[in-house]
């Protein structure tokens, strides 16, 4: 099996989880109601926990320790898609991102549960239930606010239209698509995207929201190979602030 290809796959998954987990954790204490604050914070924690487990596999393949990978890299060394690094904005955008991203993530983990690379298959099987709840949470919120009031519908629609080019960036092709598919590690971003489009449309159909015409949307790619928006580096600086004070500190 091609180790470089597997590492490429692991990095993008781990970095997505870490960056979005951190972004979502910024809502802690600011949620629209106490119950939602706790739910959203718990899911953010799940994502950071998932990233750690993917970094562990990378570590076993010869990469640095999880903490080093999380806190000692600069923006251009990160492989997350740009969608995950965008500032939280208002809750409408955070919910739309959560919906678009987690729908893709659950499909990804379902696909990877069948991976020929055992550590990825085992981990995906283990955590896909966690992500299933994340998608339940996202779907119910989108269905609720997507058919509630004029304000909630128009806000979500605006955020959806804004997020879509970034969301398509989730599926930026890997340099190793063919190899990963051939080795049975991962069926690929194209298959993932096709399933995702159908599922997203399926939920939106149950609301007053309109699915943007995907053919007209120019995907914003580059994140998978270090090309990020200006929002990522400040996030990394803030996230690693405590770690940088004393990298050897024991928690």
């Amino acid at each position, binding site marked *: 099996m091609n180790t470089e290809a597997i590492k490429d796959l692991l990095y993008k998954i781990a970095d997505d989880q870490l960056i979005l987990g951190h972004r979502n954790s910024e809502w802690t204490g600011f949620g629209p*109601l106490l*119950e939602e604050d*706790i*739910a959203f914070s*718990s*899911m953010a924690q799940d994502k950071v926990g998932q990233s750690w487990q993917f970094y562990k596999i990378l570590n076993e393949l010869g990469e640095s320790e999880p903490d080093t990978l999380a806190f000692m890299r600069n923006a251009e060394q990160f492989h997350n898609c740009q969608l995950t690094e965008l500032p939280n904005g208002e809750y409408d955008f955070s919910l739309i991102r959560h919906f678009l991203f987690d729908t893709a993530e659950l499909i990804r983990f379902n696909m990877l549960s069948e991976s020929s690379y055992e550590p990825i298959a085992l981990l995906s099987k*283990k955590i896909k*239930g966690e992500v299933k709840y994340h998608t339940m949470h996202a779907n*119910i919120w989108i269905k*609720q606010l997507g058919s509630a009031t004029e304000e909630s519908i128009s806000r979500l629609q605006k955020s959806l239209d804004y997020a879509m080019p970034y969301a398509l960036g989730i599926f930026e092709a890997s340099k190793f698509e063919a190899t990963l598919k051939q080795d049975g590690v991962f069926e690929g971003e194209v298959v993932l995207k096709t399933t995702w489009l159908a599922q997203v449309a399926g939920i939106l159909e149950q609301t007053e929201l309109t699915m943007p015409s995907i053919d007209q949307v120019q995907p914003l790619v580059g994140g998978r190979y270090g090309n990020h928006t200006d929002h990522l580096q400040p996030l990394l600086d803030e996230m690693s602030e405590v770690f940088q004070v004393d990298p050897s500190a024991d928690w």
Partner: protein
Amino acid sequence: MSLKSLDPRVGRLHISEQEDNDKTQKGALDQFETYEAFVQVKEGKSLDHVGSVHAPNEEMAFLFAKEQYTRRGMYCNTLCIVKTENIMMSEFSDNKISVYDSVTVNPTGIITEEFEIFHMFKRGKHHRFIGTVNALNFEDAMANSKVFYPSEKPVYNVWVVNAKHMLTSDDDDRDIWDTLKEKQYREAIDYKGQDIIKAYKEKIAPD
């Protein structure tokens, strides 16, 4: 006095004091309605009332209760939600007197609906799911429950819920709790800082 937050997230909001003062007053009682959550930790264990959540509807109450009441602990098998207003409550009793003692009617034998029965065995403790009865209405459910679920311990309060008002998690969705036992970091007990604190205390004030 002007307060400045050290939290960069607060700083980014650029909230001016003026804005803070101008904030319109919130109306009274503007919260969502409440729903009661019940959890069965493992198959074969009891289904217990764990608390309530505010939510605009049943589905969202389920979402919130899942993280409110099952984000810690080792396992979860089932989560049930009932809107608080759909719980019919008996009188309270005390001093070893069972609330069923005041139920004097016999079951009518007329079966129109299913009711879920919950008992409270100690004042201040949670209600526990006891079983289901087929009955005509609340009073009849109480009468049936007295016959079918006699209790050695005195029952101080009973909740009766029409079965159609109970939202129960799907068996297929049990995997949402698969990783619960690995979330020990959510327990304060997981942080063993005592040694570090002791060493630090000795360092700053050696005796």
